[in-house]
């Protein structure tokens, strides 16, 4: 009897800017991920109840859509083995403290390129475990 093993990884991307979401979506789909996109806190929280996430990339500033740091903490609580990356405009002591206290794996420069973030993430955490199945996308 054969067992079905989940090989496709799922990434949650939370950003208030649609063009940034698209860029991250392309970068992750290019690496074989299923991507779930959210532009604000309520949408992201709903997604957490509907999917299992291996990776979350969250903007620390969601504009009127909320603050990204507590969301990172919630993702870490629900998916303790997930890679949680936060896009922050600066690397200060306060930013690093927020990252540590919310279980963030790595901080990325908010002005950085999506491809660079995904490549850095792959190198840091996922190595050769990239998914090999057909990617899919769901937009909330």
């Amino acid at each position: 009897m054969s067992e079905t093993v989940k090989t496709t990884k799922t990434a949650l991307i939370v950003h208030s800017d649609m063009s940034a979401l698209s860029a991250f979506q392309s970068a992750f789909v290019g690496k074989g991920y299923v991507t779930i996109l959210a532009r604000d806190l309520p949408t992201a929280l709903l997604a957490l109840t509907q999917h299992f996430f291996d990776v979350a990339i969250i903007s620390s500033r969601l504009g009127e859509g909320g603050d990204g740091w507590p969301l990172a903490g919630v993702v870490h609580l629900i998916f303790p083995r997930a890679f949680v990356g936060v896009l922050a405009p600066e690397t200060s002591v306060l930013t690093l403290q927020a990252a540590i206290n919310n279980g963030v794996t790595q901080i990325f420069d908010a002005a950085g390129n999506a491809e660079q973030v995904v490549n850095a993430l792959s190198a840091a955490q996922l190595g050769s475990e990239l998914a090999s199945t057909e990617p899919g996308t769901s937009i909330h």
Partner: protein
Amino acid sequence: MAQKPSLLIVDDEANVALTLRMVFEREGFAVQTANSCASALKLLENGNLFDAVITDLNMEKENIGLEVARAALQLCPRPAVVLCTGYASVDNSAAALEMKVDYLATKPVDLDDLKRAVSRLMAWRRQSGRGNEQQ
């Protein structure tokens, strides 16, 4: 009767260690203290298991609390690790993040915040089984 969770407090200021000891004993922890990185490392390397470790950052040397954190994070089961410092910098905070320290408290420490953080980490550790995996 359930066993008390164990906590190691590392601080070279005796009054700080004593205060934290009293606070966390009142919270139901079995507390051991160490007044230096060297003493803490002896405790951690001699097979003592702790559910949580709270360590000062600057003791014998600047940032030496990171050595305590590193040793604690290598234990299996892995304790929750909290750094307390009045001298947080981008460099030492980035090192703490990279090591996966669980909580960074800046001095003067708000004791209620610290108690809540340790309590939350202990609950999360129990529920997620996180303490049973290596870094």
